[in-house]
């Protein structure tokens, strides 16, 4: 009797998955754990996060302490990564910059998420004229050269890290909108959405309880990739003087300050470059890993 025969495997899975945990999440975690690159990326991000949290404790010196007598010291004892042209400890600054950069990218991604996802959900679910108009506006936004758009936003709002993040959020809103809209359209065509309607669910409940959880996987991938884009964008804007301003320590700003003395003290450019490279590599590897782990799974039930 097919009714009674439960596949052994899924019984075992049910037990490991726990009572309330989504099957998808548990299976995705297991798939991620089997992917060495994704595992390394997650470990790196955990370490970066710990650095960001404990930056003040880890920093051997005050990152903003100017000591003109010890300027442009080469790496060595006392100052492991040397000092910059104002005599500030580079190691301390790069650690503190980790916090600033991660928080800033969190802001930018969060803002883009909060704006792009609800719009994409509504456009994808409702369709019609509203969707057509909104989608054309988003398309128009995407055709603008990204750097120019950022310059315009900063010109309007004024320089500073926060405004640079708003500019970057504007830049990445379209990608969240498109991912949310496309995934919503495909989930909305599922039979269980029609079943929810037939059971008297309101549109809000359908969007919130049935569609949003369904589009979470592609959004997670997008968040991871966007985070790496934001890190690079922050570095670029700060390098151009449109982002963080002295004496704040960010990787982009450190890079910009380092270029002034690049002929005499080239060692100054490496710490921020390495940090940016490690971070974007970790985010994009995690994104790749997530995309693979969340890929269309074979329907075990069928």
């Amino acid at each position: 009797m097919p009714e009674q025969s439960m596949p052994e495997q899924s019984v075992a899975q049910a037990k490991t998955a726990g009572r309330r945990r989504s099957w998808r999440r548990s299976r995705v975690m297991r798939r991620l754990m089997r992917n060495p690159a994704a595992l390394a990326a997650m470990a790196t991000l955990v370490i970066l996060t710990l650095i960001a949290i404990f930056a003040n404790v880890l920093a051997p010196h005050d990152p903003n302490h100017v000591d003109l007598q010890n300027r442009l010291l080469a790496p060595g004892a006392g100052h492991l990564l040397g000092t910059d042209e104002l005599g500030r400890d580079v190691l301390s600054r790069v650690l503190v910059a980790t916090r600033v950069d991660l928080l800033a990218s969190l802001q930018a991604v969060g803002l883009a998420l909060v704006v792009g996802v609800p719009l994409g959900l509504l456009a994808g679910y409702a369709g019609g004229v509203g969707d057509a108009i909104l989608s054309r506006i988003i398309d128009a936004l995407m055709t603008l050269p990204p750097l120019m758009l950022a310059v315009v936003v900063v010109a309007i709002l004024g320089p500073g890290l926060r405004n640079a993040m708003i500019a970057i959020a504007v830049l990445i809103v379209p990608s969240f909108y498109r991912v949310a809209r496309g995934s919503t359209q495909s989930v909305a065509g599922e039979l269980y959405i029609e079943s929810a309607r037939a059971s008297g669910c309101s549109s809000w409940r359908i969007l919130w309880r049935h569609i949003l959880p369904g589009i979470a996987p592609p959004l997670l991938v997008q968040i991871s990739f966007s985070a790496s884009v934001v890190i690079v964008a922050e570095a670029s804007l700060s390098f151009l003087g449109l982002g963080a301003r002295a004496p704040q320590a960010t990787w982009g700003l450190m890079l910009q300050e380092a270029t002034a003395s690049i002929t005499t003290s080239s060692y100054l450019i490496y710490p921020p470059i390495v940090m940016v490279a490690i971070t974007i590599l970790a985010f994009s590897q995690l994104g790749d890993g997530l995309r693979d782990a969340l890929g269309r799974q074979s329907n075990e039930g069928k």
Partner: protein
Amino acid sequence: MTNDIVSTSGHADEPVLTVRGLTKTYGRRPTWYRRHPHRLVAVNGIDLEVGPGETLGLVGESGAGKSTVGRLVLRLIEPDAGSIDLLGSDITTLRREELRRMRARATMVFQDPYTSLDPRMTILDSIAEPLLVQGGTGRSERYDKARSLVRRVGLNDAHVDRYPYEMSGGQLQRVAIARALITDPAFIVCDEPVAALDVSTQAQVINLLQDLQAERGISYLFISHDLRLVRLVADRVSVMRRGEVQETGPADRVFEAPEHAYTRELLAAIPGRTPRARRFAAPVGAAPAAPEPATGPALASAEEVVAPAQ
């Protein structure tokens, strides 16, 4: 067109569902730049009536518009013309909130139980959801009722915390039935409720539906391409072809003395006489009974467009 509605259902009780002149057309309307767009009349001016506690079987080949009718009478899709009187209200004019209330009293069981339940909700949450969205019930009250329905449909408490992927098709269809029942509806559209199940489970699910009808006096609109099954469960039968009802009458009469030529064709197309023979033959819907050459292409396009809705 034969119409036995009046003679069989009687006037003692108000019908649960009365449909008059129901029409649904798919495709774009003609515009100045597209004078002859591809249009398909999925449902063309049909009349139906379902009495209290009665099962109306709706049969026909694939693409006949059966599933479209099932969705139209619950207004899951908007009709183009016609009136639908469901449980005393004209469902075509209900406002959004009134329609949502109506969904507690008239609901649907879908063909494919693997995809008709949210894969990210537990069985218990899925069953309790229709009650939750109607409001006015407490959490424990909802779950108690859901648990008692779980037992009523033949599952047990061990199933309630599972996710759909952990269960078989027959179990899932029981869950879908429990979900439909939790708001104590008077009318349920069963759209090919056992077509996705294997033969041994079909009978169990059909028996369950019949027992529940006897217990609760629910009316069914039972949509199926399986004529034997419809004969078994339906009190009356409507035969559809290409969006139109060809013949309506008591199940025994329609099957034993079909008045319409198409009904006879459909009956003749039932392969084999024994269950064993039937298992190796193509289903009726897959090979439409010898359409006249002139209607062939229209039938093909009808299948193309309507099939995804089923």
